[in-house]
């Protein structure tokens, strides 16, 4: 023991700066908790009098109910039963979504006609069975009660409800007018697309209406990436980095595991290279240079924080360093970078020399990736570096572009606004985009769309900011309601198959486009079939091939074939590099990033997204100006101080939040918040950044001035919730240390020598469920948290209740900072119920509501629970969640939301009907006053057991996949039978880096964590270790 402690100096692990700077354990209670009786007072509708009234009424009601035999319930069978639909048996359909220019395969689950859950389609080449956070939460949007239901037509200053018939007629007339003048004055503004049908119809519409012009707008777009590839090769190319084939990755301001294009594909490939099972295996190494602290930075082996303006300098200096080494030649680009100053990085010389050596030592498998926020010239330089490193064709692959007609959205939107201003435009049809909310501040879309005589047709899921100016607003169908198709960046084409008819009607963008193109049958089903017939002809019957395609979710024979890029256009890159060059300015630099949950604001009314803690800051229900501790100290601001952030004349107010490890003199601001018309849940939540973002500075801007606004705003975060008070929990070691001491994790977390006071149960027979979570490949992306929420009917509680520590997610991802507060590294641990074999919660339950199953599960019988909360108190992992109130309808009972006095309805009377449709029928919806927690997805376990009984076979490894395991992009979670020696989980449990959380308590958890291994480069020095020793001394 002592030897091991000596070999492993323990750096300080902390969850927030307050914890780091406090001496003893903090009083974690909120003010409300310190006040006795606060629960009743805060819920104002239930004062003392109200309580007595309700008690009386309840007693009377109970007396009455004894006289009534039963509530009479009816069974409503079908009149004509749909084919394949067996009531009670869920169906799964393959479909697809697109995100940031890539397609993601989805397997959607439908219970008796209601889509309830989305999972990854294992047959899809990009996602290979995983699903990211944004796609997981998209199911909620289908049931969003604020979705537009009928088209609306402008009468004077207001939008009045109309009908689809009226819209169809008006739209037909509009098209007829423009058909007569060849489309003069007609513009279509769309989002970037991956849909072959969309592209086909776009061409058809252009052919029919020659003067029709298309514009694209996305506030978060891939224009720099595409332009960079175009500059580098002289033609449109899609770039895919194969992280699975990479040994050394240098990510420069690229959150490639989080929000960058292709993040899901990247995480799927990258995860296994981090989860090595034996010390002698090869492991990839990740260097990250970034300004904010992203999940990719958290996964890095070495991380350097730089302001965005220094990042360009770093890249040039790296190119120069590489060029100066032998066997690396950038050719004609060399003169352009030879002047790159190195002295700015004298403090980080290892980041040039050592990194360059490492890249050169792993030629072919050492990709350099750059964030999509950086200029095309720099992207072109990165392409040139990858060519010179021999990565092309091995770890960097190129594919034919998804949309060869993709344009620069900023220029495109500007052109549209200018044309409207000049009076050349009579009609604008906006398909999906919301530029009034997210256009750059210097492009006045609001004024343009309000132009006298302009007819504006807006297709969107909600009546949002842009809709308010529209002549006609048309509800857009959800992707689970309409047909479509998507082309992945590697060329794989997937059909988008609906699971339900539109709940309230609704149109797809391709349907409006088909009408523009003059198609007589413009229904999306026909349109997509037409595309498949013409673009992907198959031998034999189309019908059979179509059904096969829908079954698989991908079109056979498409995709996966990279193209050989042409020779790199070195002179053009050199010219562009000479022209580019950001000049650093005084003041604060601002970085604008898409939010990991709301993205560009399109998920702003999604309550799951709103309450999901940000992966790094753990902030819920808000965004904030993130800054480093040093910058906060220099500006003398603390968390929650509202800052006035100004760029030129424009300014916004936003609260400050200190993020350790952030670059100095830089603020990170997340987009997508502060939408005034998001819907009942999201409207006005967070802070809108639009005034600060200009068309020249969409991604970062230098020279901002900041001042304290003199007030505070309560930013709620969960980073101190469930603190484990400094015990060794998220363990990691460098690869070298692991090789020296393979069982380090078990020595840090040791089972007690004495057993419990009672006889232990025998778990040697039957199924014994267990889980492993590999901290090596976990990136903390939160996909599992949302998957769990969707699967297990977990409610959200609202910002005020999260502040009281009452959030309900069964799975939380604890994020610890390790070491120095200015440049810490990150340790993650996803914690759900550990299913202890000697569960402390069970011993204290007075009503046996929680008890052990013979298969090792810690069962929860909700209807027995009387809500003493003893179990939560006795749980060492703090994973039990209590329904203090009727959370499911709680937000809907909020007086501010429903505009009046809330009623206390225990029957979910306030809750919109549609939201109930999302519930998983196989999991009880818990009511007020009961405890709940992770069940290892017991409904899936039982369903699999029933299936084996039905089919008379034995359980196979992989029959049971928990929701978190299914979605995990990096495959960090395994689940199965510990007594099955061939199971994946049984093998992983025995790995020498496996350990149990708080093993010393002797509770024998069933969840095993695999300690993270960091592939640190010894030549880089260990600044983090040195700093932490300093901190400890």
């Amino acid at each position, binding site marked *: 023991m002592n030897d091991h402690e000596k070999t492993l100096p323990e750096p300080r692990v902390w969850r927030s700066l307050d914890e780091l700077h406090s001496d003893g354990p903090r009083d974690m209670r909120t003010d409300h908790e310190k006040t006795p009786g606060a629960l009743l007072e805060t819920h104002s509708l239930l004062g003392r009098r109200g309580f007595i009234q309700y008690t009386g009424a309840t007693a009377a009601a109970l007396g009455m109910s*004894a006289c009534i*035999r*039963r509530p*009479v*319930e*009816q*069974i*409503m*069978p*079908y*009149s*004509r*039963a749909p084919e394949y639909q*067996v*009531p*009670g*048996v869920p169906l799964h359909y393959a479909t697809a979504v697109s995100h940031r220019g890539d397609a993601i395969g989805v397997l959607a689950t439908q219970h008796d006609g209601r889509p309830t859950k989305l999972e990854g389609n294992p047959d899809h080449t990009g996602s290979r069975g995983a699903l990211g956070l944004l796609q997981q939460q998209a199911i909620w949007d289908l049931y969003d009660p604020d979705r537009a239901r009928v088209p609306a037509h402008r009468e004077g200053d207001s939008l009045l409800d109309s009908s689809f018939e009226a819209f169809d007629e008006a739209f037909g007339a509009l098209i007829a007018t423009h058909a007569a003048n060849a489309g003069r004055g007609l513009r279509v503004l769309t989002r970037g697309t991956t849909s072959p049908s969309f592209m086909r119809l776009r061409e058809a519409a252009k052919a029919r209406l020659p003067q029709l012009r298309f514009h694209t707008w996305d506030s978060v777009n891939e224009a720099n990436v595409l332009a960079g590839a175009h500059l580098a090769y002289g033609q449109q190319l899609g770039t895919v980095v194969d992280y699975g084939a990479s040994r050394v990755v240098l990510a420069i301001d690229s959150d490639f595991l989080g929000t960058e294009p292709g993040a899901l594909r990247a995480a799927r490939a990258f995860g296994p290279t981090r989860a090595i099972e034996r010390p002698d295996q090869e492991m990839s190494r990740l260097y990250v240079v970034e300004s904010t602290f992203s999940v990719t930075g958290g996964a890095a082996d070495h991380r350097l924080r730089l302001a965005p303006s220094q990042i360009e300098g770093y890249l040039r200096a790296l190119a120069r360093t590489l060029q100066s080494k032998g066997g690396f030649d950038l050719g004609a680009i060399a003169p352009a970078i030879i002047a790159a100053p190195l002295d700015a990085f004298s403090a980080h010389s290892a980041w040039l020399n050592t990194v360059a050596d490492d890249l050169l030592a792993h030629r072919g498998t050492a990709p350099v990736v750059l964030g999509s926020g950086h200029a095309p010239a720099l992207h072109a330089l990165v392409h040139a570096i990858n060519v010179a490193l021999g990565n092309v064709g091995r770890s960097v692959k190129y594919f034919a572009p998804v949309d060869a007609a993709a344009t620069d959205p900023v220029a495109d939107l500007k052109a549209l606004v200018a044309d409207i201003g000049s009076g050349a435009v009579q009609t604008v049809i906006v398909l999906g985009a919301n530029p009034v909310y997210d256009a750059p501040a210097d492009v006045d879309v609001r004024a343009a769309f309000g132009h006298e005589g302009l007819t504006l047709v807006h297709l969107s899921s909600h009546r949002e900011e842009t809709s308010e100016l529209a002549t006609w607003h048309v509800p857009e169908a959800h992707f689970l309601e309409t047909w479509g198709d998507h082309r992945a960046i590697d060329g794989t084409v997937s059909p988008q198959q609906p699971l339900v008819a539109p709940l309230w009607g609704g149109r797809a963008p391709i349907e409006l486009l088909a009408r523009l193109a003059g198609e007589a049958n413009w229904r999306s089903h026909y349109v997509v079939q037409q595309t498949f017939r013409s673009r992907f002809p198959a031998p034999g019957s189309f019908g059979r091939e179509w059904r096969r395609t829908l079954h698989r979710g991908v079109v056979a024979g498409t995709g996966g074939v990279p193209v050989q890029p042409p020779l790199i256009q070195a002179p053009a890159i050199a010219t562009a590099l000479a022209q580019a060059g950001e000049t650093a300015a005084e003041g604060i630099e601002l970085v604008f990033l898409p939010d990991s949950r709301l993205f560009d604001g399109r998920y702003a009314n999604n309550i799951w997204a709103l309450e999901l803690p940000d992966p790094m800051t753990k902030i819920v229900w808000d965004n904030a100006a993130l800054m480093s501790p040093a910058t906060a100290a220099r500006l003398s601001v603390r968390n929650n101080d509202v800052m006035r952030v100004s760029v030129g004349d424009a300014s916004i107010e936003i609260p400050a939040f200190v993020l350790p490890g952030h670059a100095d003199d830089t603020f990170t601001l997340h987009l997508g918040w502060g939408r005034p018309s998001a819907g009942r849940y999201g409207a006005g939540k967070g802070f809108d950044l639009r005034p600060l973002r200009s068309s020249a500075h969409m991604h970062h801007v230098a020279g901002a001035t900041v001042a304290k606004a003199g007030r505070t705003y309560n930013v709620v975060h969960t980073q101190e919730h469930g603190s484990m008070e400094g015990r060794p929990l998220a363990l990691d070691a460098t690869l070298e240390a692991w090789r020296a001491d393979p069982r380090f994790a078990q020595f840090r977390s040791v089972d007690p020598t004495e057993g419990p006071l009672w006889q232990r149960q025998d778990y040697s027979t039957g199924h014994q469920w267990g889980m492993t979570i590999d901290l090596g490949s976990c990136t903390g992306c939160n996909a599992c948290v949302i998957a769990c929420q969707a699967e297990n009917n977990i409610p959200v509680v609202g910002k005020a209740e999260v502040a009281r520590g009452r959030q309900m997610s069964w799975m939380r991802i604890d994020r610890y900072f390790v070491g120095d507060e200015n440049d810490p590294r990150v340790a993650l641990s996803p914690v759900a119920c550990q299913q202890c074999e000697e569960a402390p919660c069970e011993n204290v339950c007075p009503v046996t509501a929680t*008890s*052990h*199953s*013979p*298969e090792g*599960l810690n*069962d*929860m*019988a*909700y*209807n027995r629970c009387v809500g003493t909360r003893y179990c939560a108190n006795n749980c060492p992992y703090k994973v039990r969640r209590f329904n203090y109130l009727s959370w499911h309808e709680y937000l809907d009972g909020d007086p501010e939301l429903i505009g009046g006095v809330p009623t206390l309805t225990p029957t979910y009377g306030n809750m919109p009907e549609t939201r109930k449709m999302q519930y998983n029928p*196989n*999991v*009880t919806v818990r009511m007020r006053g009961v405890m709940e927690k992770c*069940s290892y997805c*017991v*409904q899936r*376990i*039982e369903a699999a057991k*029933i299936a084996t*009984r*039905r089919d*008379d076979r034995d359980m196979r490894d992989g029959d049971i996949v928990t929701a978190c395991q299914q979605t995990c992009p990096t495959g960090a979670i395994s689940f199965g039978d510990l007594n099955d020696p061939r199971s994946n989980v049984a093998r992983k449990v025995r790995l020498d880096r496996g350990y149990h959380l708080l093993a010393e308590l002797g509770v024998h958890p069933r969840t095993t964590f695999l300690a993270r291994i960091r592939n640190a480069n010894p030549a880089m020095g260990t600044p983090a270790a040195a700093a932490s020793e300093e901190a400890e001394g």
Partner: protein
Amino acid sequence: MQIFPRKLNLLPLVLGAAVFIAGGAVTFGVWYYFSPKNLQVGYAPQQPVPYSHRLHAGELGMDCRYCHANAERSYEAMVPPTQTCMGCHNIVRTDSARLEPVRQSWQTNDPIPWTRVHKLPDHVFFDHSVHLAAAVGCVTCHGRIDQMDVVRQDQPLSMAWCLDCHRDPGPNLRPRTETTNMQWQPDEAWTAHLDERVAALNPPTHCSGCHR
């Protein structure tokens, strides 16, 4: 002066005994008479269509699974769609007045609103398919449906009643081929191998077996 007679001294004792007995009676009454065995068994609501199981399953000898077709596949045995009724009744008794709601449903596409007889609480996840896979007969839980003109609840369907069988399933098991046979009786050949079957079955008695 003695106002009350001496024997009134017994009053507290008598009162105490009376309260005890009355309390006991009330407790017993509630415990016994408010139990599902009394409140649920025998429930036989009138149905929108006077469908007779005695006629169809008893006299005509139709198999249960002709209509309750999903009993072996789903947790729900399924009340059949109108389509199933019309499969025969567009040929047989096409003008019967009692079948009018069925024809109505077929024409309007609206469901027939049957009244649920066998109801389990929402937090109970009962699965027909696994019980049939284990070869528990229909008659065990539903009684002699083939003798009922109006379906009535035959068993309490209470948790204790479920657990009685889960703890000792032997008496309620039968060959898989006989699950829908209402008259099957165990013979010696069957009882001889029952213990093996029971051991292989091992039905759950822990919470999450039924509550999730």
